[in-house]
């Protein structure tokens, strides 16, 4: 491994984000290293999604800095951030309902590397065989799990260096959640894809992730390896007891 590889891919330092006058992130520091799966867990309204959206520049951080791949992206417009190969699967999936699965995937592929389209789409079919069956069907007619698969596949079509997923398990049956998490693990192991995962399903997320952060009220309160956090009594009490085992 070269020195480059050990440097973090994404560094957030002292990020403060406001909605109007209300502060949502009160100075957040996180690092995502190359080839890692990093998860961010926390209760509803803790600011998890806000942090993810802030990295994407919508809304922008009022203070602090976000450095990605050696470049300060704090002030860049959202679409330019996305073109730096940060792919995001936003909360609530947000696929294009009236477009077909194929068209949705085309939207994900960036124009400048269309030559990879055929191989990439084949890869998506290997990863999510269900999408192949549905390829000419409208996105809106897919089931929730299939839509989530489509959202992840669409994000992957951009050949990202960093994949950010906002609650991919939301509203899905345990079996489908397992399929999706398996796919994420596969992507990380085989391609070395860096993943930043925002989750409420703390048990699954921490089992999957190399490292995790816990966010409470717009502040990171704890961090550590996935196993450390899983065994931490505070985390267990707050997010795991009574949850899925």
């Amino acid at each position, binding site marked *: 491994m070269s020195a480059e590889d050990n440097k973090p891919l994404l560094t957030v330092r002292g990020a403060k984000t406001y909605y109007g006058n209300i502060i949502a992130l009160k100075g957040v520091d996180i690092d995502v290293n190359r080839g890692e799966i990093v998860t961010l867990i926390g209760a509803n309204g803790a600011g998890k999604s806000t942090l993810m959206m802030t990295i994407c520049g919508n809304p922008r951080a009022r203070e602090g800095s976000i450095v990605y791949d050696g470049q300060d992206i704090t002030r860049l417009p*959202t679409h330019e951030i996305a073109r730096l190969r940060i792919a995001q699967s936003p909360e609530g999936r947000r696929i294009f309902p009236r477009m077909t699965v194929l068209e949705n995937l085309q939207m994900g592929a960036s124009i400048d590397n269309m030559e990879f389209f055929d191989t990439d789409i084949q890869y998506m079919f290997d990863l999510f065989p269900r999408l192949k069956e549905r390829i000419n069907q409208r996105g809106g*007619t897919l089931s929730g799990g299939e839509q989530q698969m489509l959202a992840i596949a669409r994000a992957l079509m951009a050949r990202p260096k960093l994949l950010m997923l906002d609650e991919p398990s939301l509203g899905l049956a345990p079996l489908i959640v397992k399929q999706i998490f398996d796919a994420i693990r596969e992507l990380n192991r085989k391609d070395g894809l860096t993943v930043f995962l925002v989750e409420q399903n703390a048990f699954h997320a921490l089992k999957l992730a190399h490292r995790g952060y816990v966010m409470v009220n717009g502040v990171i309160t704890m961090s550590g390896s996935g196993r450390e956090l899983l065994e931490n009594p505070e985390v267990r009490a707050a997010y795991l007891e009574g949850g899925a085992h």
Partner: protein
Amino acid sequence: MNSAVKTNERAGIDFGRALKDGVIVGIIAFALLGPLVGLKTEQNMSNELIVQNRLGLAAILSVIVGVGRFLLSAFIYPRIAARGNRSKAAATLAELEARAKLTQGLSIVGLIFLFVYPLLIISLFGVQGSIKWVDNYGVQILIYVMLGWGLNIVIGLAGLLDLGYVAFYAVGAYSYSLLAINFHLSFWVLLPIAGMLAAFWGIILGFPVLRLRGDYLAIVTLAFGEIIRLVLINWKAFSGGSAGISSIPKVTMFGIYSFDVSAPNNFAKAFHLAASSAYYKVFLYYIILMLALLTAFITLRLRRLPIGRAWEALREDEVACRSLGINTTNTKLTAFAIGAMFGGFAGSFFAARQGFVSPESFVFMESAVIVAIVVLGGMGSMIGVALAAVAMIGGTELLRELDFLKAVFGNDFNPDQYRMLIFGLAMVGIMVWKPRGFVSARQPTAFLFKRKTVSGDLVKEGHG
């Protein structure tokens, strides 16, 4: 056995029951209409009330009601019931392809018809008699088809509700009129200039409204339409105020032949034909047909390009668009600009055709009609929009033809006055039966495995 009879009933049309329904409803209608419509009191010269007998009219109306009910029970209700029974399974690939083929076939037949239409009319009604059919129907409808297709880019594809589209139509019309009169430039030079000016104004409107969506955007665009109209009325030195601009030059046949009666190279004179404005109308018909087809062609092409896909994605989900690296600002502005450009083309054609423009032609009602065409046609569907334009504009013109109704409703009856009422009813009806417009299905622009034999593959792999 019992169930067999039932299915039989459902499949076939039960004329007996429908007839019974019709007769009963007719009788009820007559019982109601008899006193309400059949008897009318009127004052005579000596201020006495006289009962006028109009039972014949009541009878006619009752028969219409009865026949209507018969048609409903015999054809429409069974159909609706049948549609309810049909499973609403997702369309298969084969179905989609069959549908695409049907649309393609229809488009070709439609295109051929459009090209031979003026010749057909001339052979049917003679040169002089063709004017009404080519001008009032052909040209008029095609202008609205083109406007509908132009606005379809903004509303149907990009999902930006624009209620001020007529402003760009006005910009196009005034650009042509003023530049043609003041600088003596030809229509063919000014057509692209008018389009560019309209596109420029589209961007001017686009910038301040970039952050707005839905209702808010609609209100601002509506205001923009009104501002343009009010400026045209009040800036008399520039636009001639509400008196408008008259004697706008006609379109020439690329400078070779003119349609001015006094010109030496007059088209009819050059070919030793009897003088008639019909030739000019036919010429105009082909110009607007080509312009409309250009709009359709460009729109269809754009839909397959990244920008068109981005428009459609923008309509579906703006946040998702941004997270996929689409510059939503530029995407919206191009939608406004390209939509406005086609409005500008149509506007300059309109000015050349009328020979006269005034702010009266660019009232909000026009915008509303164009929006109605797009919505009725099914947002985003080219064929749907064309059909809606034919129904809306052709329908309006047809109402002027219904003089025979005077025989039924008396001489004071003017079907033209009921036009808006009828349109209101028709629109309510369409929105009830086809809430997404005539052609609601969005045609996907990309297929995988289309010409390959793999389609069996799709059906087999039922596990994932």
